[in-house]
């Protein structure tokens, strides 16, 4: 394996060997290919400067955050799931589990919940103007009790729950923790994440949010609370995916993602939070789309830049504060209405590029998502795609298999350099929050989106079935229709909940939440908003009621 110029004892390869022997004792990760050739778990050589190449699991983690990756622990399949009422989503969860999905790490079950738009934004089902969206593109959840249905019988210590949502994120975490508390689970055993997309004003944008400054304050509050009380909880997902989906280039999306991390870190430092306590629980959501090799290179560059920024700019010391954990998702915006089966192929290539770049979790979209919510058949095919890559292709035998490729290494370095240039530009403009407030960053993203669209219009960029190889025949595909009764049932359930709860206790808990929010807004008692959200949710306050308080205190974006 080693080339002759590799230093015998002190170089990256020797260090890697020692770590692997230490960590995995005598376990062998050597695979055998079709021809009987033994395949090592990772290959080494010289880097572009002629020095011995960095190995996986070594700073700055270009080649991955683990010395041994899929050979030891496959990626987590986290298909997005959620529609209608909690009881209806539960049926789909049971289907996925039965099909071999929902696999978390080390035998845990894992679910990636998406909520309907009212829930995602923190509104209750009876909020004016939201009725038509209830349960339509996600689950309707507004009270702690809803988790008792959704996760009925599940051992929450062995279930990883991922919650994808926007402005409703802080309250939603409150509901989940309150439900766990009622069922007697200790918070320090709970694993999962809330995407906490309140940082994002330029990717997954549109819709309501807190004011930019209020959002970044709340992110710090949640991070500080969880570091102390729910230490296994991942409190923030920076979605490079959403920024790309909004139209940004890969370089822009990585740079803006890192800029978001910088803004969050700066907010934490300002409030006296030790970064090594909170940063290990930040993570990324990255998009895998149309540029196969660029996707791989950007992932490697993202890990490298993240490590350097956290160590060199912020002085983080813990290795977990330097390692970018990445949840991959194939590109939704590339899914076409035209010839939708083509999307199966697009998704498979996107997923393969994610795996070759060493991601930690995976969402493969369903081929019919441009038509509507995925059907059961389409969801199953997504899972099969992941299973085929994992168990048939052999792509998992070698970590960072693209490492050392002239092309990929050059692209990686190039992306890193351009990302640092954009970060310097954002610094010059007063930082990310200033760029959000001025509208500059949104303009950058929209301009890139428009440019992309013009390439499609002109034919300079091919989209098979859309601007080339077009067919005329109308295609009939089954489209999933959520239960139109969900809205009525959700509203009735909410009314019953309000009638039956202890109003005095609930009102007092909401008043305590307001007090904590005002303190945190003013820079005191960081972590107390999240603590008060758990208390309020346990006192049967609804998501919308808690959100109204937070909006009052932390302001709205519009």
């Amino acid at each position, binding site marked *: 394996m080693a080339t002759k110029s590799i230093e015998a004892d002190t170089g990256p390869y020797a260090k890697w060997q020692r770590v692997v022997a230490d960590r995995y004792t005598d376990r062998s990760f050597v695979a055998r290919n079709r021809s009987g050739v033994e395949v090592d778990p990772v290959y080494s050589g010289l880097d572009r400067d002629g020095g011995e190449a960095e190995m996986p699991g070594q700073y700055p983690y270009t080649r991955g955050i683990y010395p041994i990756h899929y050979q030891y622990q496959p990626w987590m399949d986290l298909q997005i799931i959620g529609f209608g009422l909690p009881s209806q989503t539960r049926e789909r969860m049971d289907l996925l589990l039965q099909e071999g999905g929902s696999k978390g790490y080390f035998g845990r079950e894992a679910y990636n919940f998406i909520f*309907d*738009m*009212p829930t*995602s*934004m923190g*509104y209750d089902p009876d909020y*004016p*103007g*939201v*009725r*038509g*969206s*209830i349960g*339509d*593109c*996600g689950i309707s959840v507004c009270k702690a009790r809803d988790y008792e249905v959704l996760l009925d019988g599940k051992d929450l210590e062995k279930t990883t729950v991922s919650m994808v949502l*926007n402005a409703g994120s802080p309250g939603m975490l409150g509901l989940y923790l309150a439900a766990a508390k009622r069922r007697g689970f200790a918070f320090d055993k709970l694993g999962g994440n809330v995407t906490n997309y309140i940082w994002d004003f330029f990717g*997954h*944008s*549109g*819709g*309501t949010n807190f004011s930019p400054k209020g959002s970044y304050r709340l992110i710090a509050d949640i991070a500080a609370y969880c570091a102390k009380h729910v230490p296994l909880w991942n409190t923030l997902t920076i979605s490079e995916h*959403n920024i790309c*989906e*909004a*139209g940004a280039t890969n370089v822009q999306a990585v740079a803006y993602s890192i800029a978001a991390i910088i803004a969050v870190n700066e907010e934490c430092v300002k409030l006296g939070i030790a970064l090594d306590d909170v940063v290990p629980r930040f993570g990324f959501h990255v998009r895998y789309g149309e540029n196969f090799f660029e996707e791989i290179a950007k992932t490697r560059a993202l890990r490298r830049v993240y490590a350097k920024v956290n160590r060199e700019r912020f002085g983080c010391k813990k290795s977990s504060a330097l390692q970018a954990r990445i949840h991959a998702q194939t590109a939704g*915006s590339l*899914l*076409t*209405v*035209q010839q939708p089966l083509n999307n199966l192929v697009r998704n498979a290539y996107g997923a393969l590029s994610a795996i070759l770049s060493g991601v930690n979790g995976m969402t493969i979209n369903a081929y019919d998502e*441009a*038509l*509507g919510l995925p059907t059961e058949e389409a969801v199953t095919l997504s899972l099969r795609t992941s299973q085929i890559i994992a168990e048939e292709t052999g792509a998992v035998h070698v970590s960072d298999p693209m490492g050392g490729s002239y092309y990929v290494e050059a692209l990686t370095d190039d992306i890193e350099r351009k990302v640092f240039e954009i970060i310097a530009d954002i610094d010059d403009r007063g930082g990310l929050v200033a760029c959000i407030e001025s509208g500059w960053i949104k303009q950058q993203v*929209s*301009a890139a*989106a*428009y440019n992309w*669209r*013009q390439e499609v*219009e002109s034919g300079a960029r091919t*989209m098979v079935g*859309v601007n080339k190889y077009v067919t005329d025949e109308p295609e009939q595909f089954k*489209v999933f*229709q959520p239960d139109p009764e969900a809205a009525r049932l959700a509203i009735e359930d909410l009314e019953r909940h309000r009638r039956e709860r202890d109003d005095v206790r609930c009102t007092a808990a909401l008043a305590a939440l307001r007090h904590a929010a005002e303190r945190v807004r003013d820079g005191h008692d960081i972590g107390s908003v999240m603590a008060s959200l758990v208390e309020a949710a346990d006192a049967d306050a609804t998501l919308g009621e808690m959100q109204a308080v937070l909006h009052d205190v932390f302001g709205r974006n*519009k």
Partner: protein
Amino acid sequence: MPDTSPQPRILLTKSFIDSHDRAIATIALALRDAAMEVVLIDYEQPEDVVNVALQEDVDVIGVSFMSGGQVETTQKIFAELQRREVAGLPVVVGGTIRPFDVPPLEAAGVKAIFRGGAPMADVVESFRSLSRAYRGLA
């Protein structure tokens, strides 16, 4: 002879609880490049859409949807147009429009539906001709 008729005025809008606004932002830029005047808002309630449409004196409304509410919102916009006595103001809908959304959207009176992948030239032309027809220039 050069066309001296006024430029089309378009209101583009998306719900306050919807997200992913790439499409509407892209269409706003395309219409602007086609020399139209574009007002882009996030509405809180469907009634707000009609309010802004009247205040800004637009001649077409375009509503984009990603994540639900397609039918209910559109129906409410039409009801408000009727109530404000501008029932003829054309409404165009785009985004994730599912087959089961189409009949009620058409019944409500939607003039055009654009899904992902629709050629931008068609979208621009549709807004232009609806605008001209509304102003009696067609």
